[in-house]
């Protein structure tokens, strides 16, 4: 056991020694790569926490912390020159953006698109139904008379696509997107069961 332990200690030290012996340009690249990987994982973990996905949050937390402890801490302490510093900041920002970009595919769930349309409510509702969405319309009163208020629930990863479709149907429509925490019932949820 004690020998095994020493052996593992050696391996960990090897990783760190290898990192410290890298030429400057490669160190900067490694700093950028590690920081963007680390931040991608961290951003996804944070979003999983917000969405209440415990299992996935555990896995991402484990990857994030272990990779940090293994090598990232050593590399990221290596910030004596401006190029490494720049690589660090750029990696941080890049990872953050990558995390945001892939989260809607990675974290399942639903959003509510709420559309207020003054003239083309019927058209928007009909087109959305034709493309397989569940839509509920309400007649409401706006500044210049009757408007329609349209509720449409969509899987998170299709929000952008659906929103741009609605924008082409009625360029003047007013749209808000809400995060839905739970959803149950309705014909449409059954029809899209494979999606979440």
């Amino acid at each position, binding site marked *: 056991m004690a020998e095994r332990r020493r052996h593992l200690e050696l391996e960990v030290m090897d990783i760190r020694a290898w990192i410290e012996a890298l030429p400057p340009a490669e160190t900067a690249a490694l700093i950028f790569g590690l920081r963007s990987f680390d931040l991608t994982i961290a951003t996804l973990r944070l979003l999983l*926490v917000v969405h209440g996905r415990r299992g996935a949050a555990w896995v991402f937390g*484990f*990857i994030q*912390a272990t990779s940090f402890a293994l090598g990232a801490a050593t590399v990221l302490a290596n910030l004596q020159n401006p190029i490494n510093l720049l690589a660090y900041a750029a990696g941080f920002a890049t990872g953050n953006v990558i995390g945001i970009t892939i989260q809607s595919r990675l974290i399942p769930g639903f959003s*509510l698109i709420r559309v207020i349309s003054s003239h083309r409510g019927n058209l928007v509702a009909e087109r959305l139904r034709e493309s397989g969405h569940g839509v509920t319309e*309400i007649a409401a009163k706006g500044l210049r008379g009757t408007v329609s208020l349209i509720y449409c629930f969509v899987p998170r990863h299709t929000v952008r696509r659906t929103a741009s479709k609605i924008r082409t149907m009625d360029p003047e429509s007013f749209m808000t997107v809400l995060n839905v925490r739970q*959803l*149950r019932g309705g014909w449409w949820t059954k029809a899209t069961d494979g999606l979440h």
Partner: protein
Amino acid sequence: MIDFSAIPPALITFAIFLLRVGDMSLDTLRILYVIRSRRGAAWILGFLQSSIWVIAITSVLSNLDNLWNIVAYGAGFATGNVIGMALEEFLAIGHAHLRIISSRMGSAIVEALRGAGYAATEVAGRGKDGTVAIISSSVRRRDIAKVQKEISQIDAHAFVSVEEVRPLNRGFWRA
């Protein structure tokens, strides 16, 4: 700072795990309160968490010299994260907005909600197969499951979505 040299190696691994669990549960809870604009709770949690960080985690970081300790560090981080989430759900502070769409049983649902002491607002809407009732009701987060059960007993086909809210003005509220 904690002096790790006085502790036997196996216990160090365990101590790293426990310290990271404590630190991360507080941190996760803090983030969830920040999102909900709970300033007071966020301040207290931030203070506690950063104190643990300065006292314990910085000394843990200098002890990550073997794989067991690194795995304990990662597992503690991940476990603390999940415990923080579970704690927040258990405390379930705040309100949620229920949006119920029912094609036939709208008024029965509204009556049941009002009977149970919740405020409900009913609007007539148009769905795929004609008129539907859209019911908005804000309930305490810890009551969500109970209310959802009641609704599904009245109309098993009702479409129910839950959104989180920060109430600005309470209006009618007996609950």
